[in-house]
């Protein structure tokens, strides 16, 4: 693990350097592709994030920034750029990292990987052009019979095909690494998590292609009609599952950052991998969350799918919810922080933005995104908030406080280890995850609050000023939307800081590929003797047990509060 010299060993099949900090063998083709995908990701985050700020400022009743046409246009662009382009580009970078770099292998077919990258860029740009031309403000979901310009769909298809090819490169790299025996035994847990993400990605992108290709043909007039319900079922096979790729990917990132920052190792490989297996099997069924208030689908189909077949994927998440903090606690206790239940947490490296971002992501994904997701995805409870702004509240809890924050945290190691540049402005970098996390938590919670008061989503004017039949939503809803706007400003400050630090580091950060420079945010020096599993007292985890107990109690209480609300509605039998 402590190879000192950065030697370049040219082989017939790859060109490797050995990382001075981690001892990992890094294939140069993989390294360049990781860089390219990460840079593209950050650019789309900047564009989409700015659009998000404009959306939030328009929905802030006192500000009401954009006119309605622009609001719907920008909202469509916000969804596509951050929910799809930012996250999938970053995930492709993670897939290449978790396969080629962690396995010490060459990347399979770098040329095809570049072709995939080009396809993804072309697709993303094409869709953005369609959105900005103004006749494709159909939202991220683009439900027919509402129709966008043909190149809106074509761009998404090209992007999905590119991403699918990139996922193929990941699988190819697994095959090469296995065939060339670049590692011993089983793949690392983080690679296994990435594999989970890749498997879900195949289902996701295939569903997307299956439904978007006919939709494209319909938009150019070759198909006369699209069934809206059929479209919705298959589209959500992509729309929701693509968020499940994120879950698998950011859980892997949690494990990776735990390992890099404090030397955490999984409590048990068996348990953590089985939790990922539950994701592979059942997580994608949750696409049904979007059809609980729709006509035509039977209660059995709804219940089986919305519950991930008896909540087995939720079980997977709850397992990670124990094993990730458990692994952190065990590692910190090994590192000497053994006092009381929480010394390990108090003395964690909170000044390291990678650790801070990871831990905030873990806590907020569980408490905000996770609990609200299960409640929203309960067959009957869905009636209470279907399509209200509670829904974006929920998924900003998962995708922003969970995925985006975790990916931002990971960036603080992608920059030194892959770009080989040291982080600039360490003081600002230290506060970045807190700023972004706090803002994102506010966005999620206030939108959820507004949604329970009936505020509709994707809606330009919640006061219905120009409607023929007017009525008023509760004033609390207006207050919540104002607070949501404020939170968005805070989150944007954190987001802008992230972009500036990232771009600045890539351009002007101190070069780490020569000399003996230490990292600003150091990696953990792994303890010389890692205890064999179960042979050590470190598996007593009082802090983690307290944390998961708090989580469980909140979960149960919130779940039953919503049933109480439901029971007060009009009767529907």
């Amino acid at each position, binding site marked *: 693990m402590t190879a000192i010299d950065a030697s370049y060993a040219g082989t017939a099949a790859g060109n490797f350097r050995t990382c001075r900090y981690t001892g990992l063998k890094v294939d140069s083709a993989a390294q360049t592709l990781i860089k390219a995908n990460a840079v593209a990701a950050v650019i789309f985050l900047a564009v989409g994030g700015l659009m998000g700020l404009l959306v939030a400022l328009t929905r802030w009743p006192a500000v009401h920034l954009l006119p309605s046409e622009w609001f719907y246009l920008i909202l469509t662009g916000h969804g596509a750029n951050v929910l799809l382009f930012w996250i999938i580009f970053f995930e492709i970078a993670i897939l290449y990292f978790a396969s080629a770099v962690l396995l010490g292998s060459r990347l399979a077919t770098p040329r095809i990987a570049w072709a995939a990258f080009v396809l993804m860029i072309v697709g993303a740009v094409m869709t953005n052009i369609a959105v900005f031309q103004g006749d494709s403000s159909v939202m991220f979901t683009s439900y027919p019979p509402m129709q966008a310009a043909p190149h809106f769909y074509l761009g998404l298809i090209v992007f999905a095909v590119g991403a699918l090819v990139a996922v193929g490169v990941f*699988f190819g790299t*697994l095959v090469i690494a296995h065939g060339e025996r670049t590692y*011993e035994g*089983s*793949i690392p847990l983080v690679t*296994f998590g990435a*594999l989970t993400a890749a*498997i*879900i990605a*195949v*289902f996701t992108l*295939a*569903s997307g292609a299956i439904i978007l290709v006919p939709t494209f043909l319909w938009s150019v007039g070759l198909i006369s009609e699209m*069934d809206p*319900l*059929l479209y919705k*079922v*298959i589209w959500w*096979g992509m729309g929701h*599952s693509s968020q499940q790729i994120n879950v698998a990917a950011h859980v892997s990132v949690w494990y990776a950052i735990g390992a890099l920052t404090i030397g955490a190792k999984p409590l048990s490989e068996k348990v953590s*991998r*089985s939790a990922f*297996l539950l994701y*592979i*099997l*059942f997580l*994608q*069924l949750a*696409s*049904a969350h979007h*059809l609980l208030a729709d*006509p*035509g*689908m*039977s209660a059995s*189909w709804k219940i*089986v*799918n919305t519950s991930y*077949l008896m909540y087995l994927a939720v079980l997977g998440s709850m397992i990670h919810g124990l094993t990730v903090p458990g692994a952190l606690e065990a590692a910190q206790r090994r590192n000497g922080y053994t006092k009381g239940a929480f010394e390990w947490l108090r003395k964690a490296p909170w000044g390291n933005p990678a650790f801070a971002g990871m831990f905030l992501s873990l806590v907020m994904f569980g408490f905000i995104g996770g609990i609200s997701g299960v409640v929203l995805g309960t067959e009957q409870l869905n009636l209470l908030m279907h399509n209200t702004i509670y829904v974006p509240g929920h998924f900003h809890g998962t995708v922003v406080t969970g995925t985006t924050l975790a990916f931002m945290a990971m960036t603080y190691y992608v920059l030194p280890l892959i770009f080989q540049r040291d982080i600039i402005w360490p003081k600002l970098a230290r506060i970045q995850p807190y700023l972004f996390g706090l803002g994102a938590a506010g966005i999620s919670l206030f939108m959820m609050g507004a949604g329970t008061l009936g505020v509709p989503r994707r809606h330009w004017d919640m006061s219905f000023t120009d409607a023929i039949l007017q009525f008023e939503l509760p004033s609390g809803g207006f207050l919540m939307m104002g607070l949501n706007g404020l939170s968005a400003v805070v989150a944007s400050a954190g987001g802008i800081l992230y972009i500036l630090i990232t771009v600045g580091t890539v351009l002007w950060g101190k070069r780490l590929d020569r000399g003996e420079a230490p990292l600003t945010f150091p990696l953990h020096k792994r303890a010389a003797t890692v205890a064999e599993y179960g042979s050590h007292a470190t598996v007593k985890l009082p802090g983690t047990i307290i944390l998961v107990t708090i989580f469980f109690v909140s979960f149960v209480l919130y779940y039953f509060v919503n049933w109480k609300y439901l029971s007060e509605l009009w009767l529907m039998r």
Partner: protein
Amino acid sequence: MTDHPESKERQEKVPAMQQLLDNPFLLLFIGITVPTVLYIVWGVMEIASIPIAP
């Protein structure tokens, strides 16, 4: 790393569940089949069986 203790361990049978978890393509297969059958195929059948209004 082909010394003795390792090869001895190799003779020990790898448990079936570990074999499954070590096989990416088997996982890929089940990971696509389960949602395709339970969500997509069943869902499309539900829509196809909606009767015409009387």
